[in-house]
């Protein structure tokens, strides 16, 4: 793939993942040299919104019909679709409350005029279209993104991290917040790749990178309850970044 | 983003860092040094000495061994040699360790202590000053 045509898009989200790409600073020049970025609304005013793309990088969750349509258009014009950020991969913060009826929510917040807003329950990209590669994170890790793109350009499958945050924490000999401080640290459930930055600063992992393969939700919930935390608090913590509905759906898929 | 390293300034007076918890020794040694035109920086324990040396690498270090801890100097010397910008700074060790601890008759071999010269305490000040002058006039 020599100098592929690339588009970088954001649906509903904070645009933090696109910002990480721009924040690559001295390596950003390598990125522009290696990729022919044709459509990147956040960084350019000269965008081609119709051309075919070899690679589309999309952040943000799908929260409206407009998002859905935009995503479908992107999928139609791209060979490879990469979802970046926990919102795109898991639904993220917007997907936190999957239980409340959407129209009820809109009415509560906006009153009657809420009816005119185009809003749908939050969904991850893979719930709408086929996704070829997931790079989660809140925001994504610069190194992981760059090596993912490097691998793609070399025709290789990107090596995604598959180990939990716990392992990275232990490798750095940080004090374990689960065994020492009786904290609600989601380290064992969360996908690593962040070098256990938060536990290293004595802050319990909040699971911002989404669940790791084969995360044992039941056992961790039981552990937290043994340590005196209530079900409500635990549920709230678990679904902050990867709405329980999505997590449960994905975990049950793996078991088949 | 790369940080720029401070370039070594070769104009101006040479800096000598003295690390010793013996205040009298530090004063007694810095007076003749300052008279000779050297700029003297003083530290009274290994940690402080290391901190100052890392901020502004001196041209020469005078280091005591027995400070707050009996072997503090050993560890400080080792740490200086591990620090890239201090690796080639000459270290003159002064110590009463070998006379104060009878059974510790070990010679302070150069490879062991990673130092450049050794002066047993009580220090022959003339000899020390001559060595410093000779050492600092060699390199420009």
């Amino acid at each position, binding site marked *: 793939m020599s100098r592929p045509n690339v588009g970088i898009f954001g649906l509903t989200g904070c645009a933090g993942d696109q910002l990480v790409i721009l924040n690559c600073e001295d*390596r950003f020049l*390598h*990125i522009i*040299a*290696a990729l022919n970025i044709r459509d990147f609304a956040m960084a350019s005013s000269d965008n081609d919104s119709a051309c075919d793309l070899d690679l589309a990088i999309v952040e943000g969750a799908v929260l409206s019909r407009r998002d859905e349509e935009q995503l479908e258009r992107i999928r139609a014009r791209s060979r490879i679709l990469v979802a970046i950020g926990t919102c795109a991969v898991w639904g993220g913060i917007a997907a936190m409350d999957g239980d409340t009826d959407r129209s009820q929510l809109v009415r509560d917040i906006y009153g009657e005029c809420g009816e005119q807003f185009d809003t749908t329950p939050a969904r991850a990209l893979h719930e709408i279209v086929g996704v070829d590669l997931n790079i989660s994170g809140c925001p994504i890790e610069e190194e992981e993104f*760059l*090596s993912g*793109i*490097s*691998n793609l*350009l*070399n025709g*290789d499958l990107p*090596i995604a991290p*598959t*180990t*939990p945050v*716990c*392992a990275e924490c*232990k*490798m*750095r*000999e940080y*004090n*374990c917040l*689960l*065994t*020492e401080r009786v904290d609600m640290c989601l*380290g*064992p*459930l969360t996908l690593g790749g962040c070098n256990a930055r938060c536990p290293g600063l004595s802050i319990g992992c909040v699971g911002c990178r989404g669940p*790791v*393969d*084969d*995360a*044992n939700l*039941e*056992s*961790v919930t039981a*552990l937290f309850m043994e340590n005196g935390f209530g079900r409500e608090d635990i549920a709230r913590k678990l679904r902050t970044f990867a709405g329980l509905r999505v997590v449960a759906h994905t975990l049950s898929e793996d078991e088949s | 983003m790369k940080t720029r390293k401070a370039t070594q300034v070769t104009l101006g007076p040479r800096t000598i860092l003295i690390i010793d918890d013996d205040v009298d020794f530090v004063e007694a040694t810095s007076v003749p040094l300052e008279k000779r035109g050297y700029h003297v920086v003083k530290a009274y324990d*290994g*940690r402080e000495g290391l901190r100052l040396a890392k901020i502004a690498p001196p041209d020469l270090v005078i280091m005591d061994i027995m400070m707050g*801890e*009996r*072997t*503090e100097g*050993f*560890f400080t010397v*080792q*740490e200086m040699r*591990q620090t890239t910008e201090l690796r080639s700074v000459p270290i003159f060790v002064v110590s009463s360790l070998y006379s104060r*601890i009878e*059974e*510790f*008759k*070990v010679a302070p*071999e150069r*490879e*062991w*202590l990673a130092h450049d010269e050794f002066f047993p305490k009580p220090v022959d000040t003339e000899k020390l000053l001559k060595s410093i002058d000779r050492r600092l006039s060699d390199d420009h």
Partner: protein
Amino acid sequence: MKILKLEKGKLDLFASVVQQFGEVHAPTEHEGKFSFKRLNSWSEARLDYNRTVLPPRKYFLPPRETLFKYREATGYVPATEDLEKRVVLFGVHACDIHALNILDEVFGKGYLDPYYLTRRKNITIIGIDCTPDEHCFCRSMRADFAETGFDLFLKDIGDHYLTFVGTARGDDMVIATGPLFSEVTHSDIVEYKRRSSQKCDTFKLDLEIRDLPEIFELEYQADIWEELGEKCLSCGNCSMVCPTCYCYDVADEVKLGSHDGDRVRLWDSCLFATHALVAGGENFRKTRSSRIKFRFYHKQRGFVAEYGRPSCVGCGRCIEACPVGINIVGVINRLRGVEHASTD
């Protein structure tokens, strides 16, 4: 074997002489936990520690190391800069010394691993004895006394350390230290024997391992494995802290915009979901229960078949590190049918 004694009060002087053999690293304390780190001063050393978070293995098989670099311009270049670094590990317990001897079997026989072996040559081991706590069971695993694998070993006899010289380098260290070492007297020997037999009685955990391999064979389908599978988080903590775990993953990291890259070696664990995943998508140990069963089997049975002894040394780190309290001693006792044994 040459045996001398060193006055405890002179240990700091000895430690400073030892610096000529390399950078001194010893267990240091941080918020109640211990870990081997380079010393900034002798007072940082905590030789009274029970166990460190990561075992000395981290020096010989680092969590992440570059094996070689490949550059389009120059080809393959082995990454050997830090292999030559001379380090002195001061205060290694017998169980961890046994663990290193076990790793020598794996990396030093058959296919020789040059990275591990070079480090083994350049890192000096000064052992020290210890007091077992409630998680130690090295005595059951026959790892509470180290006969070999150290340069020096210090044994506490009150005001002195009996110093056992294990290698020529250990001898060099004693000679370099000179008159600080003195001859051992008869009363020293009596005191050593007294303390040694006293220590044997202080172990709180006990495990019979002699027929364990057979019991493991018989209990392959036991219910306990399913139960553990439900509890286990697959977090890999037990592997990270284990002094004899040696599984690793190898990956290539390519630099963007070029064909240059590094080949790196990273710690892996059989507990990770993808550990037994192979090309084509087949996963030989898809379920958590199969993975945790594998870990126990490898340590206590598989390793025995290949190397003649279990690879567990009874250091107790996995017991301390498991967030859900899975305890290897409890598991084994339950398999044996020891009454009222629970798995935590």
